[in-house]
């Protein structure tokens, strides 16, 4: 029963994406027609879809490495024997994760403001002229990436910290006796031991970052000039603003295929990596 419960939606999404389900069909099902792959063809011909896809890839390609880098850096610092007040720092660094994305997006919209925002204020002390972070198509996506990294890095930090604590101390002792420097210990002990966990964390983070929606919805409404329109945002607008549910379902199904393909590729790559 439960299995059906979870697989059925995918089949249903595929089925709906092959119809012209719209507001008329919503009112009366007899208006529904099967149109085959027309939704997909129309979608692939629309520049807006490619724009949304490009933006989403940009967000994933820049956001995931930055996010993971911040998580790993914070986890290494917290795991250091020199670190003090670990419980406090751990909670402080994790706090953004449990906040409500809409609420903190509202805060960041202000912090990133062109005239009165703190970021520009801080930059001005370095002699950098004010930047219209959320109003300039060149800077809107970097600003959203910065926000996403702030919001999310604590989650993977906790998981990686658990991984670091599971690395046996003897390995470090042995490396130290062999005269390995702190950097060499990180490079040849810590990172290889952490690699399996890192690859799982990377897969989950990529899948999560492909689902960008609330951040642009609150901070930029997909603008300026559609520079922060994501695939999921496009699905929301198609389906629940214009009520083209057939077309929206096609967008959702393409996003599903995309995430599935990337996950599969990455799992393959990770396996190949371990075999070496």
């Amino acid at each position, binding site marked *: 029963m439960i299995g059906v419960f979870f697989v059925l*939606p995918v089949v249903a999404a595929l089925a709906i994406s092959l119809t012209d389900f719209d507001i008329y069909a919503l009112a009366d099902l007899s208006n529904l027609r099967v149109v085959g792959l027309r939704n997909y063809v129309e979608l692939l011909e629309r520049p807006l879809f490619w724009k949304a896809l490009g933006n989403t890839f940009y967000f994933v390609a820049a956001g995931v490495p930055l996010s993971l880098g911040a998580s790993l850096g914070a986890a290494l610092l917290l795991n250091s024997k020199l670190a003090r007040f670990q419980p406090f720092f751990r909670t402080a660094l994790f706090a953004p994760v449990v906040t409500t994305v809409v609420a903190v997006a509202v*805060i960041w919209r202000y912090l990133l403001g062109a005239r009165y925002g703190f970021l520009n204020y801080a930059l001005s002390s370095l002699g950098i002229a004010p930047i219209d972070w959320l109003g300039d198509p060149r800077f809107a996506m970097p600003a959203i990436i910065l926000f996403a990294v702030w919001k999310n890095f604590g989650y993977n930090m906790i998981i990686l910290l658990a991984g670091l604590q599971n690395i046996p101390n003897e390995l470090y002792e042995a490396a130290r006796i062999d005269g390995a420097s702190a950097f060499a210990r990180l490079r040849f002990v810590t990172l290889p031991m952490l690699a399996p966990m890192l690859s799982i964390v990377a897969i989950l983070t990529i899948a999560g970052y492909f689902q960008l929606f609330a951040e642009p919805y609150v901070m930029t409404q997909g603008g300026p000039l559609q520079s922060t329109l994501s695939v999921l945002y496009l699905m929301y607008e198609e389906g629940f603003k214009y009520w083209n549910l057939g077309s929206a379902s096609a967008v959702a199904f393409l996003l599903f295929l995309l995430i599935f393909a990337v996950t599969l590729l990455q799992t393959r790559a990770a396996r190949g990596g371990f075999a070496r």
Partner: protein
Amino acid sequence: MTDRRAPQAWLLPQPAAIVVNGLLFAGAAFALFPLLWMLAASFMAPGEASTYPPPLLPAHPTLANYRELFAHAGMGRYLANSILLAAAATALSLVFNVMAGYAFAKLRFRGRERLFRLMLGALVIPGQVAMVPLFLLLKHMGLVNTYGGVIVPALASIFGIFLVRQYALSIPDDLLEAARIDGASEWKIFAAVVVPLLKPIIVTLAVFTLLGTWNDFMWPLIVLSDQNLYTLPVALASLSREHVQDNELMMAGSVLTTLPVLIVFLALQRYYMQGLMMGAVKG
């Protein structure tokens, strides 16, 4: 809260220790600054935050923004909606997930292992692919634009079932056998033996579900069209589009939306972290 460094950490002559703790302090400041500033700005007078240089603390702290939110923006209603929905979703999903997790761990039924593997496979499916079909299903059932429509997708969670199953595997079979020999019914065993043993994981799951449903945005946005039913995140997003200039008011709204979950998290942190580890280690 930010100034809890003990002097000895800084008197140590070890440069590496200073670097490590300095970086941690900088990271914590980066993580906490937006939240602390939100709290400070929520007590500022209207227009005060829109000055240059941006103020850190309110000149004359006032509750006017909170009063305005409750008096004119209907915040009390949204707060009540959020509390009601999060509590109901948590209670109902706990009943379902704990029973299912226990069944997967301890009850023998046909196709159990296959069903469990199928369910784990479904974890890679992003929830959004189901949104259109689910919306149409709920529309058909008359649940669109109702509290029920918001709760339904939260009821069964693969993660929740998995969490309970992993924990329930550690319950000794002998204990259940002994109860059966004593003539206890399966329901009685579940209620009197299993649930008390699962208590820690039930708290963990409750915290996760509570925070998840409270913070959820996209689904309530889609399913609710009547403003009176809005949850806090949906209401806040809509308010922030109307009140782009009223920064102080929006900060008060953000405090009301996010402070409850932060408090719940701080109070039950231990359980939350445990769930995070259990879910992560198994991938």
